[in-house]
Structure formats: C-alpha cells, structure tokens
C-alpha cells in the first residue's frame, strides 16, 4: 500500500520559531510537493522538487524554504513562523515518467502559530 507520511498531525508553535515539517514517501517517486490548504483558497503550491537536491518555487513560496537530501524525504521549513502561516499543510508525491500520474497525499499537518 502506497504511503506518504507526515511526521505530525498537529503542531502549535510560537511566533518567530523555526518550524520543520517532515514528509516521507515509500513509493520511490521523483516528485514531491508541499501545499497549504485554507478555506476558500483550495490547495496552493508552496514548493516542489523533481529530484534529490532540486527544488522549485510554487505559487506562494514567501516565508518558506525546503530541503530534499534524500529521494524519499522532503522537508518544509518556516524560518520564522508567523500567525498568517497558521494553516493545514499537505505533502504529496508523484511519478514523473508517465502522463497519467497520480499524486498521493499525506494526511496533513495542522499548524497553529500563536
């Protein structure tokens, strides 16, 4: 059974803290993604990676960075958390090689910044 695992379901952090969100996939997928989900705004892409050590900015990268040191792991970093980064964060992965590739999502991390 394919799996994308996010390290935490719920996180509460203080303003200004450095926050790490971890994601691991066991499907040997090339692509990995970080989205944030907010009511009325849908899923918005923060960053994605199509290979180890490669990263591309998505639609809303400001205030975030990522790291992909190993193929199966993709980390999202909030350098200095702010209250407007309170959101649901979703990690996903997909293959690159075939046209009809499904993106598999983790269960999400609900981050609250106080």
């Amino acid at each position, binding site marked *: 059974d394919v799996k*994308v695992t996010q390290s935490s379901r719920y996180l509460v952090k203080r303003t200004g803290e450095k926050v790490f969100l971890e994601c691991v996939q066991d499907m040997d997928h*090339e*692509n990995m*993604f970080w*989205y944030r989900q907010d009511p*009325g*705004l*849908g*899923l*918005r*892409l923060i960053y*994605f990676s*199509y*290979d180890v050590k*490669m990263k*591309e900015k*998505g*639609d809303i990268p400001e205030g975030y960075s990522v790291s992909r040191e190993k193929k199966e792991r993709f980390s999202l970093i909030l350098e200095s958390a702010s209250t407007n980064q309170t959101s649901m964060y*979703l990690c*996903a992965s*997909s293959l*690159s*090689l075939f*046209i*009809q*590739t*499904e*993106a598999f*999502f*983790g*269960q*999400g991390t609900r981050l609250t910044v106080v």
Partner: protein
Amino acid sequence: QQQVKQSPQSLIVQKGGISIINCAYENTAFDYFPWYQQFPGKGPALLIAIRPDVSEKKEGRFTISFNKSAKQFSLHIMDSQPGDSATYFCAARREFTGGGNKLTFGTGTQLKVEL
C-alpha cells in the same frame, strides 16, 4: 491569479440527485485533469482523471466531461449518496522538460448529500 477556477464553492444535493461541479482553466500547457476527493481529517485522494484528447470519462457513478475548445471540464456524480459528502478539488497538471510536473488546484467544492 487563479489558474484553475472552480464553482460552486458549496453544493447541497438530495440523495439520488446529480451533483455537478465545474472548472475552467487558462493555460493550454496543462495536459492532465484529475479530480480529487477529500474527507474531513484526510488528505485528498484521486477520484477520476481525464486527458485533453478525450471528451468524456466515466467510472461508476462519476463522470468527467471535458470541453477543450472552451477550456472547461466538469465532474458529474450520478445517484449522489450521503457517503459522497466531501470536498472535491479539480486540478490541472503541467509537465516540465526534465521530467518534473506539478498540479494546480481549484479552490474546492464542499458537497453535502442530504437524505
């Protein structure tokens, strides 16, 4: 700028009725159009998908209709059931040279099917 526009934002349908969700896109580089279903507390999961060279795809009670010239596609849920109550997202995929690809999502439709 919303590259994939989805409507309605919410929808209430009676059990046995037809649920219809619409999406429109602008970028002709999109090459794959999936729909995702999300239940509360879960990540989205692929429901059904279509390529732009096909006008319709049906899987059970779920059908995608695709109009390439109008750059629109829609999800139809026939004989809607309370278990279909969820949030639905349309998406469009763009592939990049070098092998990477990314999905752009619509804003979501919260569907409630009432008894």
